[in-house]
């Protein structure tokens, strides 16, 4: 069997490993537009910050393709999929855009997502970057010597990580956030304001409710003009305005797309021979109970693995995606899972704050089942909430203690025992069998 994979980051790599764990014979061809794709995308801001060295970012060894008997077509762009003939067309950038084609039996589309760029005048100037690939990091690094002040547009995960990295490199950094709070897609106002205060105390300037309307300068950036007309001088602008799924290739091939490529519970697209995984895939979200894209590393890896197993003819059901983020700035960690800012009144919220210890914890419930959680500065047991979300457990018996500092695995043992259909992860049985 010939398996083709387009894209070679988290989902693609995870798929290769899953295929080879079961099948040593099938041919695997991976097409990636990056020349050296085996790095961890999540680590590029760490590299920019200088908290890790170049070597740590390569999270799979150089011999990975050879070891896994993968035909890697690198620095090549897939341009067309013919679903009828089961062929992919791709251009090799290095060979002057020569077009080649590849026949496949099964195809995995793991084309990921691209950074959304601001549609404001001046985004094309030198010194304006998104932060998505190792190439961006290298370009930013090469000009850091000339930078004294930097502006970050966007107060989400990437924006703040970029700001943290630049501050760590001794730059003066201001973050401009259109929303009234930072991390508005990830955490609620209460936890965000605690994090914002902490970051500001460490010397990063954060301006909320403000966006840039223009980037000024001749060829290179010299500053930004904000929507209230005020100016901020800087030599570097990083745009962290989220990502959008790379669906064009699939869409043009007639594969069903929405915000992403729509997949079923087996990660299959509308074409039975074509699967999708990672930041490009739109799948059922267990907390929202509707389709969604959670463009995060763990989801990409899990989807890549399951899609691969299903391409081999198995029937591995995917339970669904779940939003999840872990961040730490200057020693203050925050982790969030699922729905953190419920909009409808069918949800109940329980919050516990401890100003002295700088702790903020919240759970969001729907009919006494957790659908979301935030933990700031007391994060060690939040994974247990994740298990309770996925297993849809009625937590009424532990509702009054669940946010306390002493809450731990022991406190859910009776819930696991009482769970009607048991917990999905088989390891929970190890506890129950001794009761």
């Amino acid at each position: 069997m010939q398996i083709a994979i387009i894209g070679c980051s988290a989902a693609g790599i995870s798929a290769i490993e899953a295929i080879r764990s079961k099948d040593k014979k099938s041919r695997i061809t991976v097409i990636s537009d990056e020349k050296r794709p085996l790095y961890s995308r999540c680590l590029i801001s760490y590299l920019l910050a200088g908290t890790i060295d170049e070597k740590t970012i390569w999270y799979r060894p150089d011999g990975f393709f050879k070891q896994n008997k993968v035909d890697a077509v690198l620095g090549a762009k897939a341009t067309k999929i013919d679903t009828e003939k089961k062929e992919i067309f791709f251009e090799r950038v290095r060979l002057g855009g020569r077009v080649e084609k590849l026949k496949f039996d099964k195809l995995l589309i793991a084309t990921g997502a691209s950074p959304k760029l601001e549609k404001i005048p001046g985004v094309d100037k030198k010194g304006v970057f998104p932060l998505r690939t190792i190439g961006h990091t290298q370009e930013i690094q090469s000009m850091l010597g000339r930078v004294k002040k930097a502006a970050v547009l966007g107060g989400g995960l990437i924006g703040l990580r970029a700001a943290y990295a630049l501050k760590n490199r001794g730059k003066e950094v201001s973050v401009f956030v259109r929303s009234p709070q930072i991390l508005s897609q990830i955490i609620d106002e209460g936890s965000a304001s605690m994090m914002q205060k902490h970051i500001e105390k460490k010397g990063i300037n954060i301006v909320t409710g403000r966006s840039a309307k223009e980037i000024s300068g001749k060829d290179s950036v010299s500053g930004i003009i904000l929507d209230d007309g005020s100016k901020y001088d800087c030599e570097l602008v990083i745009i962290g305005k989220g990502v959008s799924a790379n669906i064009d290739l699939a869409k043009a091939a007639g594969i069903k797309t929405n915000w992403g490529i729509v997949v079923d519970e087996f990660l299959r697209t509308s074409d039975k021979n074509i699967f999708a995984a990672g930041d490009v895939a739109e799948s059922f979200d267990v907390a929202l109970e509707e389709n969604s894209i959670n463009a995060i590393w763990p989801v990409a890896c899990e989807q890549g693995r399951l899609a691969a197993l299903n391409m081999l003819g198995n029937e591995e059901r995917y339970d669904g995606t779940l939003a999840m983020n872990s961040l730490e700035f200057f020693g203050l960690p925050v982790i969030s899972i699922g729905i953190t800012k419920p909009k409808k009144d069918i949800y109940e919220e329980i919050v516990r704050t401890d100003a002295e210890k700088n702790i903020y914890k919240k759970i969001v419930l729907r009919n006494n089942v957790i659908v979301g959680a935030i933990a700031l500065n007391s994060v060690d047991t939040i994974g247990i909430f994740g298990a309770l979300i996925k297993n849809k457990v009625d937590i009424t018996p532990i509702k009054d203690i669940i946010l306390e500092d002493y809450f731990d695995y022991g406190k859910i043992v009776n819930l696991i025992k009482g769970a009607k259909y048991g917990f999905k992860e088989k390891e929970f049985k190890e506890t129950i069998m001794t009761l």
Partner: protein
Amino acid sequence: MKKIFCDIKKCIGCSACEIACAIEHSKSKKINEAIKEIPLPIKRRKAQAVDKGITISTGCHHCEDAPCVTACMSGAMYKDKKTGETKHDEDRCVGCWMCVMTCPFGALTRQKQDKIVVKCDLCPDRDTPACVEACPTEALFIGTEKEFEEKLCKSR
């Protein structure tokens, strides 16, 4: 695979496992010196209350489809292909806490000074893990799931 199991019926929550674990993971491996080490040695096993008079000693379950391995973005957390053990390479760890976020047992601990995570390593320097040896009621057991089940059958 071989791993550590806890029989809740026998656990008395004495914390002997916690202390033995912390000492085993200290520099000196001696209690009188370990308590003075900076950073303090960290236990990877915890005695926790379940209900009145019921306790459990819990740590890494070395899950088959380990969510911490899937979530690890630096390749620090991995499965030992031979033993099935979930292993952690501290040199590769960047302290992103993605494993903490996904562990359904809350079994990982952050070592804040070096910004790395620490977990049960089944005591590679010993024949029997320190916690199992220290358990005064034989609630803790090292072996395969099948062996543990057989032991439970015999004792019930």
